[in-house]
């Protein structure tokens, strides 16, 4: 109990202290795939998070997940589970880890890693089909966008 409180406190301090976002190569996952500190150092904006989740070129989370709160966006997929009520059983830290790189939580998951820039096979330059140099790759979502998505997920309390 004490330990968790302490970790949370450290995380909070770390979050406040870091001016620059944590880069994809610096991000640290715990043994369950969770990420303690805010990637951007700033709190997330849930409304922007909702927007990112339905935007094809951004999160496009509804491609695979049904989310009742986002029903204004048409066509929710069914490759992944519904995210209704996710905040009831997942913490901010767990959600941050899942959105940043779900494979650290779910081994071999089909869910793409949204905050990763290396270790890909034939990475492309966006959706052009052309090659990208690994050093030019940016994560699919920025540090702040990850935080925004996590903030929105934390509003999904009833399911």
């Amino acid at each position, binding site marked *: 109990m004490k330990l968790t409180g302490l970790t949370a406190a450290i995380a909070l301090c770390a979050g406040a202290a870091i001016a620059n976002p944590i880069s994809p190569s610096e991000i640290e996952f715990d043994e369950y795939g969770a990420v303690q500190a805010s990637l951007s150092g700033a709190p997330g904006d849930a409304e922007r998070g909702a927007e990112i989740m339905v935007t094809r070129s951004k999160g496009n989370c509804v491609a695979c997940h049904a989310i009742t709160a986002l029903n204004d966006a048409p066509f929710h997929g069914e*490759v992944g*589970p519904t995210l209704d009520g996710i905040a009831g059983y997942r913490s901010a830290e767990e959600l941050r880890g899942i959105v940043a790189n779900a494979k650290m939580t779910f081994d071999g998951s089909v869910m793409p890693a949204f905050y990763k820039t290396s270790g890909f096979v034939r990475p492309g330059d966006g959706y052009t*089909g052309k090659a990208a140099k690994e050093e030019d790759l940016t994560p699919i979502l920025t540090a702040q966008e990850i935080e925004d998505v996590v903030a929105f997920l934390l509003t999904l309390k009833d399911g």
Partner: protein
Amino acid sequence: MKMKAMTALCATLALSAPLVMAGGADDDKMVINGETEMVTKTTAPAHMENVSEIMSGWHFRSDETQALQLDDFDNPGMIFVDQALDAWNTVEGSAEKACASCHEGPESMKGVRAVYPKWNADAGEMRTLAMQINDCRENQMGAEKYKYDSVPMASMEALISVQSRGMPVNVAIDGEAAPYWEAGKELYYTRTGQLELSCANCHEDNYGNYIRADHLSQGQINGFPVYRLKNAKLNTAHGRFKGCVRDTRAETYSPGSPEFVALELYVASRGNGLSVEGPSVRN
């Protein structure tokens, strides 16, 4: 159509239970022109490890799209077949020959589509139907090759495919074909691009599921070339592969590349037993 309407319905009703949609393939029967009965579902070939039943992509399309394939007067792909028939009879190239000069009518091509890609011993290469067509154009006719995934190529493939319509796909994967098949299989299971998705992630693990508005099929190629309502033309299998790889945010391979030739052999073999459908109709 039923499925889309249901998605919309599910989306408007608040979902209380965990989402398990009765996705999957429908049970419709395909009979072309009221006479040719097609095998669109059958037991998977022995070499397939994770799938027990193979299914045509037709089963995953809306009723309206499905209907377009049932009658040649409705099938927009047949217009391209007619164009290819003209090309078949047209003299081209330095040898002043047409396909018809050596092959007589296109009926002589019965059974050909079903067994391609096929090992060509003389040339010592794995040949797709497109490669064979271009080989005849270049070396038998002295004519210019068709661009690999062009409309004239897709049309000629359609003319040749339709001669085998209803026959079971039966590509050989042993002997000289084995290393190509292995290479194709490797590609099928490789997770590419920034999304790190393999063909299998979508077409083996998730067929029957919706991914956004798209109802995922098994990604079979027994229906190629395919008339797509989306781009209103005939599309080659390699054109489709390219689009699917690109959608994983990956660098694609080129149509006609050795990688896609191997992949075509492998994907075709996953459809061994399904009827040749080309030209089929998809959205």
